[in-house]
Structure formats: C-alpha cells, structure tokens
C-alpha cells in the first residue's frame, strides 16, 4: 500500500501547526487532523502569548531561543503582523527565599549565555511604574524575551503551511492507529483512514488518550488555569510580570501588556483543578483581581473584556515529552508542554522535522535528553 502522507500530525494547535509548517517546508507530504474546525481552537487561543528563553534547562532554552527567532523575524520575513513584542520577562522577589532562588537560577541562565540581569527595586519600578515596592527586594529581567499574539500567530503559521502544501482535516477525531511490524502504518479517524510513514502526536490535552491508541503511555494530565484580557490602553509598563508568591487559593500568576495594548493575564489555581473542562466559574475574577490590584494598583481602572479557562498539559516534572517512541517506529511524541506549547511550538516543530528527516543538529541529542519519553520524571522545573 502506497503512503498517502509522509507525516500525519495529530492536533492543529500551538505545537501541531508549526510542526506541520516546518515539515511541509522540507517537502514532506503532511496531513494535520483536528477535531475542531480551525487552527488553535483548544489551548492556543487560551495562551496569553509570553515567549521566553530564560528557563533552567538547556533543551528548553535552546528550543525557545529558536522560537524567539521565528516569532520575532516573522513579520519581516513574511509580512504578517503576529504581535511580536520584545518586552522581556521579569520575576520580582518579595521574600529572601525567592530572591535567593532567582539569583541562583540567574547564575545558571547567565551560564547558558542568556540576556538576564538582577534589577534593584528602583530600577524595576522604572520598568513597571506604580508596582508595589513594599518589601520588594529586586527582580530578574530578561529583555530578550517577549510576546506574540497567539491568534494571529497560529493563523499566520497555518496559512503558510497551506502554501507549502500541508493538508488539514477539520472536525475529525482520531479513533485508531494502525501498525505493522512495529511501525506506524496509518491513522484512522471517525471519517477515514490515512496511510502514513510517521505520526507526530501534538494532541495537547489529549496526548495521553491519543498515545494510548497506539499502545503507548505518556504521563500528561490537563491542569486548569484561568486567564483574561482587558481593554487596550497606551503602553504603561514593559515586561511580563510573574508574581511567584503563593496565596491561600492560588499559586503564581503573571501578566503583560501585548503589542495592541491589552493586558493579558493568567493564574494557577491551588489546589490544582485537573481535567479539560473549560467553563468558567465565579471564583476566578475576584481571586485574581485581589492579587493583581494589590501588586499593581493602577490595574484597578482597567476594564476586563473577556475571561477564559484553559489547560496546561502537565507532565510530572514540568518538562515536555518530545522524541521518538522507543516502542513504535514512526511515532514521534511532541506533547506535555506544561503551558509552554505556544513558546516551544515553533522551535520544536523544527526539531521534530530534523528527527523525521534524520538531519540532526549537533546539540539535538543534548536537547532531547531532557525531553525523553522514558526519563524518570523526577523533581520539578524551577519556577515552572
């Protein structure tokens, strides 16, 4: 039986669409299958758009640096405004403990050559005018990080992938994976069956269920976060602000002002709310408002436009699961992004393409070591 497609990508979201684009660019015949009806209809549109390279791990740092190149260069190269803004990330410290952890991490990050520094409270206030400086000990600031708007970005990637010949099947659910001799042979959906040489699982929340269809197991569990966007106003502060301090009902939250002037933010409920239910409860707005207005009183006047609930497809250690499945030839995991699919997606798309086309870069093995599907999943990434 001849292969209709070289690669079937399952999931047309933040991870699947850039992967399809990268694969199609290499001349591969690519089919993308999604049960929704257009790109990014699950968690891409819930992402707030932060893109940073200042992680703690070599692999994520390298992948994100490549993503930043893709995001930041997109408009110049292709003409679409995807809302890229080099506004940087910042982590203010209000306790000695946080300050110590941040400074320790800073050394590691600088060791990887990242553009990140420690700011005094005074310097930080100049970047975020009006932020509460009571007890502020300083902040890390990484001006090379930034943000892009997920909705225009994924549509730009999507139309570009179409131009390179990628095909999409909308409104189809994957129901089975056909294998032959320890190798993937076809992807079955509720409507048809597609013969292929490779499958890339980019199914986000459904990563575990889709892997299970192939007899594979990945420890990915959707974990709810809630977000919102405000009316647009003139730019009044610079970087993404990540408040690490836990509160009785929530862990960290973070916010920034996007290129169009909207403030976008997201909070992590504590205890975690597991599952993929995206309907909003009444808890979120008062919970996040109290914390954000206390930290940054200027926000009190800003009007809330929309709120939503989305998921981090979490892995036990906070790192993604990317790479070939040792048990099944032709199957590539590209899942478990832990809320960072939007920022990792473009870089990972190229990495996955290099795997499939067997054209690895020198450091791909080092990158993939931390993302290995069979790793021990011990510990948790710092400031995830």
């Amino acid at each position, binding site marked *: 039986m001849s292969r209709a497609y070289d690669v079937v990508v399952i999931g047309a979201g933040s991870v699947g669409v850039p992967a399809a684009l990268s694969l199609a660019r290499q001349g591969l015949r690519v089919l993308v299958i999604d049960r929704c*009806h*257009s790109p990014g209809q699950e968690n891409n549109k819930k992402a707030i758009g932060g893109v940073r390279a200042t992680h703690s791990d070599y692999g994520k740092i390298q992948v994100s640096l490549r993503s930043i190149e893709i995001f930041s260069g997109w408009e110049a190269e292709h003409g679409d405004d995807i809302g890229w803004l080099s506004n940087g990330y910042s982590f203010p410290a209000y306790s000695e403990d946080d300050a110590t952890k941040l400074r320790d991490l800073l050394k590691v990050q600088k060791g990887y050559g990242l553009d990140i520094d420690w700011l005094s409270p005074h310097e930080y206030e100049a970047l975020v*005018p009006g932020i509460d400086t009571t007890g502020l000990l300083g902040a890390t600031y990484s001006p090379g990080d930034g943000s892009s708007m997920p*909705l225009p970005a994924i549509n730009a990637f999507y139309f570009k992938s179409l131009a390179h010949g990628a095909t999409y099947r909308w409104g189809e659910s994957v129901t089975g994976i056909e294998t032959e001799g320890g190798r993937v042979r076809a992807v079955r959906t509720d409507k048809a069956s597609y013969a292929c040489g490779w499958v890339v699982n980019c199914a986000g929340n459904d990563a575990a269920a889709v892997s299970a269809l192939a007899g594979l197991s990945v420890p990915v569990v959707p974990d709810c976060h809630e977000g919102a966007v405000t009316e647009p106003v*003139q730019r009044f502060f610079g970087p993404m602000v990540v408040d690490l301090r836990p509160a009785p009902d929530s862990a960290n939250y973070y916010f920034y002002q996007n290129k169009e002037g909207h403030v976008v933010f997201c909070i992590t409920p504590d205890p975690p709310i597991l599952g993929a239910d995206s309907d909003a409860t009444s808890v979120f707005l008062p919970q996040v408002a109290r914390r954000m207005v206390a930290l940054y009183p200027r926000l009190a006047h800003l009007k809330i436009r*929309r*709120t939503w609930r989305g998921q981090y497809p979490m892995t036990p250690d906070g790192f993604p699961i990317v790479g070939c499945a040792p048990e099944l030839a032709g199957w590539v995991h590209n899942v478990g992004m832990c809320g960072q699919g939007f920022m990792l997606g473009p870089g990972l798309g190229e990495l996955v393409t290099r795997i499939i086309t067997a054209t690895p870069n020198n450091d791909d093995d080092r990158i993939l070591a931390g993302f290995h599907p069979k790793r021990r999943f011990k510990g948790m990434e710092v400031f995830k």
Partner: protein
Amino acid sequence: MSDNRIRSHPVLPVPQREAVTIYWNKEPVQALRDEVISSALIAAGIHVFGHHHNDGSAQGIYCANGQCAKCTVIANGVPVKACMTKVQAGMMVQSVEGLPALPEATTAPNLSDIQEVEVDVLVIGGGPAGLSAAVELGRLGVRTLIIDDKSELGGKLVLQTHKFFGSVEDSYAGARGNEIGRMLARQALDSECVETWTDATALYVFKDRKVGVLHDGRYRLVTPKIVLNAAGAREKFLRFAGNTLSGIYGAGAFQTLVNRDLVRPTRRLFIVGGGNVGLIAGYHALQAGIEVAGLVEAMPQCGGYRVHADKLRRLGVPIHTSHTVLCANGEESVESVTIARIDENFASIAGTEQTFICDTLLIAVGLNPVDEFTREAEKAGLPVVAAGDADEIAEASSAMFMGRIAGLRIARDLVAGAPDIPASLSAKADILKAHPGCIDEQEFSTLREGVYPVLHCLQEIPCNPCSTVCPTNAIHMKGDPILGNPYYEGSCVGCGKCVAICPGLAITLVDYRKDRAHPTVTVPYELSNHPVQPGSVVTVVDISGHMLDSLEVAAVVTMKENMTQLVRFKAPANIAAHIVNFIVQPQSVSRPLPQPTLPTQTPDDAMVCLCERVTVGEVRALIRKGVRDINQLKAITRIGMGPCGAKTCDSLVRQVFREEGIPPERIVENTSRPVFVEVPFGVFAAGERGSHE
C-alpha cells in the same frame, strides 16, 4: 455653545435640576446634577467624543446602554463609558484620541470580599416581562430579586411617550408607556418578597451557578434557584457605505437621550426601518422638536402598525417604501443620507437616488433577543425561563402577559400548591403578539346630520380602548373583541373620549348639529411644542397625509389627564369626514437635494464590526478562502473581540455567510466568554467601596 436641552415637552415633565460645571477638553460645559456625561456633552452640542485607535474614525454615542464602548471619554483621568457615568461638579472630561492612557494610582488599593446573595428567583431585567413576573411571584411569596441596569425600573416602557395599544382591562391601553412602566414597578415593589437592585448589570452566569452582578459599582454574586431572563432585546445593525460615521445609532439609544435625558441629539434625523420601533421613534422626535427628513422601508409596506405610519405621514414625514439606504455621507459625522428605490430582489435601481440633509441616521431594522443569559444558565445547569423580548420579539403588552405566565410557571416549581396557569393568559398573550393584519378599505358614512366618530383605523391590530371608553357603547369591534377593526353603530353624544384615547390618533368627530354645510371636525393632537391656537391656519390632511385644504383652527381643548389636545375646525361638508390631522413639519425638511450624492465606497467597504473596524470585504475574502469557523474569523480579523463582545456584528457576519451561499449548519459558532459587559478590574477586587471611590 449650543443648547440642545429639551426645555418643554408635550408629554414629559421637565424637572428643574441643579446645574453643575464640568470641563470638556478644558472648556467649561454646563451639566445637570446626576445626568450621565454623554447627555451633558450632547446638550452642549458635542457629539464626537474621540477618534478610534485603529483608523481615526469619529466615536460618539451608539448604544447609550453601557453595552459598547464607542462613547468612551476620559473622566478625571480614567477611561469611562460616558453613557453610564454620572457627572460630578468640576469633572475634567477629555476626548479619547487613539488609545486612552491609564492613570496612575493615587490611593492604596481597595480589597475586600465579594458579597454573596441567595434568592429563590433572580429576574434579569425590570421591564414589562420581568416586572409582571415579579408581581405574580411576590403575590405567591417567592423570594425574588429583580436586577435592572438602569436607574429606574420599567425597561423601555419608561421611554415611551405615546399611548399604548392593547386593551384597557388587560394592558392599560390608552395610557402612555411611561405611565404603564411606573405602574408595574409600583405593583412589583408592593410585595415584601420582591427586592430590587437598580443600576445592576448581570455580567455572566458562571458554571458554579452563580450570577455575577455589578450593582451600583459593586460586584455581587447571586445564587438563585431559578433565573428569569427578561433582559429584553437589542437592535440589529445594518451594512451600507458610510455606516461607520458618527451620528448613526439605534432607535433605543435615541429614545434614551430624548425621553429619559431630555436632550436633543439631533436637529434633523432620517430613519431606516418602518417597523413600530422606527415609526414610533419618528413620532418621539417630533414630540421633542426634532425634524424628521424621512423614513425608508425596504418592503412595499411598513411592517409596523398602519396607524403609526399614517400618524407620521399626516404630520409631514414622508415614508419611502420599497427603498433602501444607499450611503451615509459626511466627513466624520453624518451630513446627509442617500436612498434609492429597490427592485424585487432588493437591489437598488440606478437613477432613483435621492439625498436628504440630516445629521443623524436612526437604524431601526429589527431586534434580536438578549438570549445570552438563557444560554449560559442552561450551560451551567441552572434552571432558566425567558420571557418578553428576551424570549420572543413582540409588543410590550404581550411581554406583560408572557411575564405573568413565566412568573406563575416558576412559582409552580418552587411553591407547593401554587395555582395553575389560567389558559386565558396565554390566549390573551397570543392576541397581543399578533402581527398587524390585512387592511380594510375605508368606507365613509354619507350621513350629514348629528354627531359621530369617524374611525380611520383600517388594519387589524390588538387594540380596543375606543370601544371601552365610549359612554354609550357605540363603538364595536368586528370579530375579535381586541384584534378586530372598530366600527361605529349607535348614538354618539359627541364627548370626544374616543378621539382623546385612541393610541393611533385615528379617530375624529364630525358634528353637523350646528351647521350642516360646515360641520365641526375634532381631531386629536399631541404636539403642543408645535402650538396651534384658534385662528391658526393649517393644512389639513386625510388618513395618509394627502392635503385636503387650508383651514383655520376654530378651537383647541386641552385634555389635561392624558396630555392630548382636541383641535376643532369648521370644514366643508365634502371633506369633513376625511380630515384626520394637519401638517406640522414644513415640506422643506423632507425635500431631496437637487442632485443626489452617490456613494464613493462600495457596499463591501461598510463596517461589520464597529469596535475593531472590520469591513464586509475582509470577512467576505476570508469566507472565500474557506473560513467557516467564526472563531477563526475572530482570530484573524479581531471581529467580535471588541468591547461590545460581538453584540453588533454577530448578525451581520451571518448575512455575509448567507450571501456567499454558506448554509447556517456549515458555520461553526463563536465561543462566548465571560463577561458580557466590560467592567473595571478593581470592581472584582473589592466587594465594598473604598475611600477613594
């Protein structure tokens, strides 16, 4: 500085209110205490409140209802909706040019818990349906909370200065809408079980079955057992070249400005749409001393009541049926409108264009139910009932009945032994919902003696106060006692009660008793702002406004109790029965320009999304590219992602899909998200007001 305040009104009292000074872009403006900023500015002749950050287009009043953000201004440094924010003495108000700047915080943040409230029934909307439901619920001892986003209960009723149709015993026919609204509010509040929050906007029905409510600036969470959605309707918008100019808005906004705030937002307007809403708005304009250059209706006949259309025509407002609006013309605000005749496919016919000078275009092309609360409550698993326009677009009189039925239905779920719902209620509601029926030929009596009424009421509509009020029971209805057309048979005593009560101003009295050759004709008149007195010479007209003669007014009798005047003429006997009213608006107002102004833009340049400035053409191009998911349209163009939350563009987008031959079942629905109305973040941080507010 111009004065656009209504100082006297034929129907509405004009209260004396304390003047306060505010500043518009640093210039002093006289405002009235407790009025909203937008009305203070409009009263001072300021219509452009800023310019859009995308394309620099002029922004101003649009919904006058807190639902959009086109009227945003900066008040004391903070961007606010001018239509919802009351003036304060000394307030510094600035136009928004591009994106507003966020002020610096000057005080410590106000943080406190959000108050939660439990009730049996939450009624969203204190209009005719919600109040009528609350009356029934209160009577049966059900703990009911009515919330309404206005300062006064009554819904759109309180904006209605015309006499209502229906029947006297069931729906107060003959009384004016504002009187009915206040009467219902008093009845609802009579019960100890019924609590009311005014200035209270429902923001969302959350999954945990709590309803977020912004009450007088404070956020509350209400947990009801059942929700009654009686939130009414919102107006549809229309696509045409120039639809983005300042000075184009709905009839509801117009009624709010004129009849609630007593300001005159326009000197001369043009109306699009001949349903009851458009026709009534035209009448309200004349009552407020505003010129009406004309009304355009696409169908061969107005969809509203014939008596409403006739009333306008008689006063001198032309109604252009089988016409459409081609374009609005002007630099940044409306300066004129061009209309054209349309063929049977609704395409405009070249060469038939006419342009009329006007400064405002009222869009009255139909209503959509405000159904989001119903949808979200259902999604959350919270029992919900809808009534009134939120359920089905119909007249206010039927909304009262449907509200009562809804109240009784809800009570049956909550109260043991609640009464059955009388079948007569829904039968009555069906009658009051009836669309206008066929039109009879008018037959005139040849009798030239005695005194009798002439009924210029030819179309079946649910209305019968004339028969109720006649002291000798001489006015009867053909067929149905409410829907049927009235006829006279009996012995008229000439009291004129039928003339004074008829909501259509469609009954006159002809009296031959003194002079058979020149009988006295009595006609109703409600425009004391265009005063007539004995000796005034006016042009009298027939039922649909055709001129009959110039006659001198013989007498004017003022009926204080219903603010109607009876105007008498001595008329030649051959035309006496045909006289229905007289022209008040000079013909020059509605005369087209010698040369029409033709559109400079194509229909695809019209805006679909006013908030994010998305054109018909952009949407069409994406549909042709294969986009079927409204969420993807949003993602690419930002359509529907602005402050109004797709309330305006939703129905327009579907029209473009239809034009492109995409059946509704192939369209993927837009995902709706909290909150339905934009609210300052600080409101969610504090259940109680802080010292700085």
